[in-house]
């Protein structure tokens, strides 16, 4: 019978089925981070439950590490250092691999896992982080879980779950110039709602998805959790295998029959299908407090929930373009890979952020991205344009109690969430592509990057 890619990977990982009909699904890779890693590992130790296969569990310092140059364990978040030191101690005691604060491979989990070839096509990977769905861009079944489920995966090697439903989201046609994977994700969520994915495994397919490079595919899959999907997946192709070949944890060759079968069969049935014309997508930006509050950048603020309008301070009918902004953030597991920084730098080159911008940060997604960007001189371009060039981490994608933006400021951000107070109490966040972030920082107001010529 014709099967979807998600079903094939699921079937290949079922170790047993429970009397109630759930499956015990083998988990190939687990990632932890310092925000919840210590908690999970300490809880297991207290219960006398060892990590069943420590070689396949990794911990990363990314969520609350300081991103200012010369950082150590200190962090601006009050009490934050304990999360770092306790996670380090617990990781060492459990014998798992740790990418520590000063490790050259440190970075945001969903950036370094593909960089190091830890995530592989056809594998299952979980982490107590909702954006784990990012890694489905490599053809893996990767999803976010809570701390208890992380303990479960580490203690048993499996998770007990009912088989998820599947959804096909097909982007036909080709993107227009200046339109990115971020815009595809926001267009999908705007059209079908932040709950539209409702626990499904979403397979992204179609000509516009195939045309994306691997890093852009990660951006698209990253936002699947903002669609309430369990996971996102893109069938691996030549680009995927070329990207992974030679990476540290990847196999020397992808020549086993297993790899060739990693695609949805002709005629495979999905529980739901959505088809989108990629050529009709414009650069998107959010106006409100949910990723579903996204509109084309040349659009007007629609009529939405009153509390969203009240919080963001924009009335229905107002053009979004030209809205003054106070701060800019370029970073996160959504949009801080080398290709993102290259595109952003191309727009920033020879220009300067507006004098009204109080703070503008560029935070590379990983230490490797930072080094590669510096080798190309991107750091100098950003600094000349008035951006601060930081060390890698999750940074101001969310506010943990440490560094923030000035109270009440309006932020243009390449991140994934525009929730109330996500970037700090009262901060009004507009999420968009890196291109829109740079164009808006330069203009001092929300701006369309297509109006900027790229400097040679």
């Amino acid at each position, binding site marked *: 019978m014709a099967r979807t890619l998600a079903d094939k990977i699921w079937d290949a990982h079922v170790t047993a089925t429970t009397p109630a009909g759930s499956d015990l699904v083998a988990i190939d890779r687990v990632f932890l981070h310092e925000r919840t890693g210590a908690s999970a590992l300490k809880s297991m130790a207290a219960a006398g439950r060892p990590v069943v296969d420590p070689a396949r569990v990794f911990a990363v310092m990314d969520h609350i590490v300081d991103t200012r140059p010369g950082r150590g364990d200190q962090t601006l978040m009050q009490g934050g250092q304990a999360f770092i030191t306790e996670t380090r101690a617990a990781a060492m005691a459990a014998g798992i691999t740790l990418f520590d604060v000063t490790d050259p491979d440190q970075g945001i989990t969903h950036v370094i896992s593909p960089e190091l070839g830890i995530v592989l096509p056809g594998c299952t990977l979980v982490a107590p982080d909702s954006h784990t769905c990012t890694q489905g861009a490599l053809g893996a079944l990767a999803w976010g879980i809570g701390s208890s489920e992380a303990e479960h995966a580490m203690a048993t090697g499996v998770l007990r779950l009912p088989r998820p439903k599947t959804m096909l989201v097909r982007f036909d046609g080709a993107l227009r110039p200046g339109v990115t994977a971020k815009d595809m994700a926001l267009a999908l969520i705007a059209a079908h709602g*932040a709950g539209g994915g409702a626990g499904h495994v979403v397979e992204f397919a179609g000509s516009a998805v195939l045309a994306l490079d691997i890093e852009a595919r990660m951006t698209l899959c990253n936002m699947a959790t903002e669609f309430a999907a369990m996971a996102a997946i893109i069938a691996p192709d030549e680009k995927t295998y070329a990207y992974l070949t030679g990476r540290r944890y990847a196999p020397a060759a992808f020549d086993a029959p297993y790899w060739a079968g990693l695609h949805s069969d002709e005629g495979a049935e999905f529980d739901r299908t959505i088809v989108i014309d990629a050529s009709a997508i414009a650069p998107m930006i959010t106006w409100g407090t949910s990723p579903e509050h996204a509109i084309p950048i040349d659009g007007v603020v629609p009529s939405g929930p009153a509390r969203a309008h009240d919080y963001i301070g924009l009335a229905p009918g107002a053009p979004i373009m030209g809205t003054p902004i106070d701060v800019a953030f370029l970073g996160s597991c959504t949009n801080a890979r080398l290709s993102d920084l290259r595109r952003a730098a191309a727009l920033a080159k020879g220009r300067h952020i507006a004098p009204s911008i109080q703070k503008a940060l560029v935070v590379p997604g990983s230490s490797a991205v930072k080094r590669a960007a510096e080798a190309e001189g991107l750091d100098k371009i950003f600094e000349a344009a008035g951006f601060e060039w930081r060390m890698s981490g999750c940074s101001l994608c*969310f*506010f943990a109690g440490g560094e923030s933006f000035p109270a009440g400021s309006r932020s243009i951000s390449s991140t994934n969430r525009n929730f109330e107070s996500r970037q700090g109490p009262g901060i009004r966040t507009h999420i968009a592509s890196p291109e829109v972030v740079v164009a808006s920082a330069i203009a001092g107001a929300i701006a369309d990057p297509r109006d900027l010529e790229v400097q040679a």
Partner: protein
Amino acid sequence: MTPFTTLSAIAAPLMFDNVDTDAIIPSREMKSTGRTGLAEGLFAGWRYVEGRVPNPDFVLNRPEYAGARIIAGGANFGCGSSREHAVWALAEYGVRCIIAPGFAPIFAANCIRNGLLPLVLPGDVVESIAGREVHIDLAAQTLTCGKQTYSFPIEAEARDMLLEGLDAIDLTLKSRPAIAAWTDADRVARPWIYL
């Protein structure tokens, strides 16, 4: 874990869509690596005004809903961050059940692992019972409000875990031989997975 069998309580109304886990427990309220001491930070951004003074307009600060054991919410409840602290904070406050037209998947799974019932009913039904006394019978999968009784869906495994207050890890460890046999075979089939 405390079993969930039946529950009678008023459903405190938090009737808007996309209540996210940053709102349920702001990251700045996650002050230690432990799982306790979180109830005070529950809905902190909405529950308190400047100086951590209770906001009289917030639902849980109204006398009729203080100490609520049930919350009625909008669509896509619990979206956003996977932080289980959201559920730990709700549980510590005393909440045992959220009723909503839909839940973000990670939040729903976290609820079940901590003995909270994520109860799905159509939006118009949730609207009609919000603010009222309801009776929930998990074994029967029914919610009664006034003279109306509604059936609600839940995965069989999740229902059984809640009814019996089971620890998922203990349960799964009983299948250790089957998992070990599968892993032995998989080591041969997919050697690249094993580092």
